[in-house]
């Protein structure tokens, strides 16, 4: 699919520029996202990967206009299909959500209303955003259930969410997110709560459905394997900044940013044995204690004076965009032998 990382020739569907999200506290404002910029082209699956506290979920929430107060956007812009949406009033944002931007969250129990049948929820969503009669909507709801792999959809359409298993519920959530035919879906850890054997099926469903309809996806996850198998491009987040963006094969196999390299090395390999795992010492800084300059410098083997004083801006390195003064070359190895912990 798309291999360029800079805005593709056609105008991107979603364009986020220099986004800053802050949370005011009694000690002063905390910066959750600092100068985050990225694009999503139509029909593209962009992966947002990072560890807890990096800011990936907050990015998704900011795009959806669902930031938990008192967190709010203090700088930058979010442009959806040519129209700025970061300052939209709540009522307009509500209309945008569902119709043009869909959402899938980690816990299906939070997305589904336990008191309504799944059929009702689907029909209600569709009829809110698309012109159709009640009967048409019901037909479509049954069809959607079939598409997402619910067996006996004509009977199950009148069942309640608690009558389905976890994997089935998440499939229904996917149907719910897609039924109003949005252009973009924000999927925040859609399979993290599911068992591994179910995870693969649900991700495959999401991927094929979105491909068929040309729906773009912002896939937020902490799991590199999920990204590797499902995304076209990926952005790696660290401490509120994007460390690196690029095509998925590039980032996964030959990452440039030292953090990404360390991250790939920490993942225990399934396919071969290793004596020790590569580890990055220390931990991601808390919001209240972000370092100056490059946020990764305290943990970076290649840090220099420049890294401490000046924050690196993302610049092109081959097909990737890297925010680092000393981008590395070569393959990243998973696991290292012989290195003491």
């Amino acid at each position, binding site marked *: 699919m798309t291999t360029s990382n800079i805005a593709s020739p056609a105008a991107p569907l979603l364009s986020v520029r220099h986004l800053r999200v802050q949370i005011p506290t009694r000690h002063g404002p905390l910066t959750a996202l600092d100068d985050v910029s990225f694009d999503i082209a139509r029909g593209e699956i962009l992966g947002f990967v990072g*560890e*807890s506290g990096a800011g990936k979920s907050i990015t998704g929430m900011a795009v959806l206009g669902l930031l938990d107060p008192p967190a709010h956007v203090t700088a930058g812009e979010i442009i959806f299909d040519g129209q700025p949406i970061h300052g939209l009033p709540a009522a307009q944002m509500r209309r945008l959500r569902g119709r043009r931007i869909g959402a899938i969250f980690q816990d299906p129990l939070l997305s589904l209303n336990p008191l309504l049948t799944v059929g009702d929820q689907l029909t209600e969503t569709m009829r809110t955003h698309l012109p159709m009669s009640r009967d048409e909507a019901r037909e479509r709801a049954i069809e959607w259930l079939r598409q997402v*792999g619910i067996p006996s959809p004509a009977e199950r359409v009148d069942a309640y969410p608690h009558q389905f*298993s976890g*994997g*089935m519920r998440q499939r229904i959530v996917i149907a719910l997110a897609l039924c109003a035919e949005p252009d973009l879906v924000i999927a925040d850890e859609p399979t993290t709560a599911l*068992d*591994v*054997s*179910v*995870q*693969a*099926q649900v*991700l*495959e469903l999401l991927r094929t459905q979105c491909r068929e309809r040309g729906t773009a996806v912002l896939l937020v996850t*902490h*799991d*590199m*394997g*999920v990204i*590797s*198998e*499902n995304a076209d491009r990926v952005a790696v987040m660290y401490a509120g900044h994007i460390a690196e963006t690029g095509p998925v*094969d590039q980032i*996964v*196999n030959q990452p440039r940013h030292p953090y990404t390299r*360390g*991250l*790939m*090395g*920490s*993942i*225990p*390999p*399934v*396919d*071969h*044995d*290793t004596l*020790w*795992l*590569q*580890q*990055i*010492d220390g*931990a*991601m800084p808390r919001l209240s204690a972000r370092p100056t300059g490059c946020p990764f410098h305290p943990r970076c083997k290649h840090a220099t004076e420049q890294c401490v004083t000046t924050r690196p801006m993302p610049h092109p390195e081959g097909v990737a965009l890297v925010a680092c003064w000393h981008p590395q070359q070569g393959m990243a190895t*998973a*696991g290292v032998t012989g290195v*003491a*912990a």
Partner: protein
Amino acid sequence: MNMPYLSVKNLSREFKAQGRTVRAVDNVSFEIPVGSTFSLVGESGCGKTTLARVIAGLDKPSAGSMQFSAPVDGRVHRTQMIFQDPYASLNPRWRIGDAIAEPITFQNLRLRADVKQRVEDLLARVGLSAADTAKFPHEFSGGQRQRVSIARALAGEPSFLVCDEPTSALDVSVQAQILNLLKRLEKEEGLTSLFISHNLAVVRFVSSMIGVMYLGRLVEVAQTAELFSAPRHPYTQLLLAAIPRIGQGRRPVSLPAGELPSPLAPPPGCTFHPRCPAAMDICRREAPALRTLDNGVSVACHAVDSGGQPVRFMPGAAHPTSSFSLA
């Protein structure tokens, strides 16, 4: 060296739920050799955590037995455990120095005057500092709390360590630190360990033997290398195929649909048969027993029993770095 440290025979644990009896652990038997790390791996509801608690002594089995042999060098048998949730495994009102000291003082492992030094030594071993003794758990991150838990476990001078998903709640880079630490300490202390996880990659890294569980039953037990290179049981193959691989592009085929049945209503016979492409008539009626093959692998599968051939579960899946032997 190969004498079993722990021998579990026909262990079961039942619970009553909603008027029915659930066998969370169903007739499980296995052995853990001295000084090795044995992992139990499986998805939710497979009973691995329940089994771990029974083995640790926190819960009583409903049936069956477990036997610990006397450790070498005249060491006393003591069990310690590392828990999954870094936030619930430390008492929020106790300073961590006191929490680590408690197993030492309660079990009289050191003279009173030596306890403080011992606590500081343990903290240093897990990568924390002596100044941390006065702090409370909420002042630490998740990964640091797990280190404190490990220090507390070591303070009890165990011969046997049970680790219940110790890194599942941690980020990947922190997980690497903790796994490296656990591996190193287990070697240094000569511990025999039981490691519980749902993550096969983690399990490959830490263990020498692996037991795969499905709905309370052990379906396969094998040496690590053997399990990954030639998984026998169809469920093991499904698990391996389902793991997202890194750097190998798109998954070329879709896995057969099917989900974990509810533990309240397990399928009759072999509990895996509704999802198994090799299911035969006997699978629907009779639960297969765990049989040990010539090469030391134990499998509970009628298909394997009858043909002696490992089942090839994934038609067309391409995994260049792993191969399935069809011997």
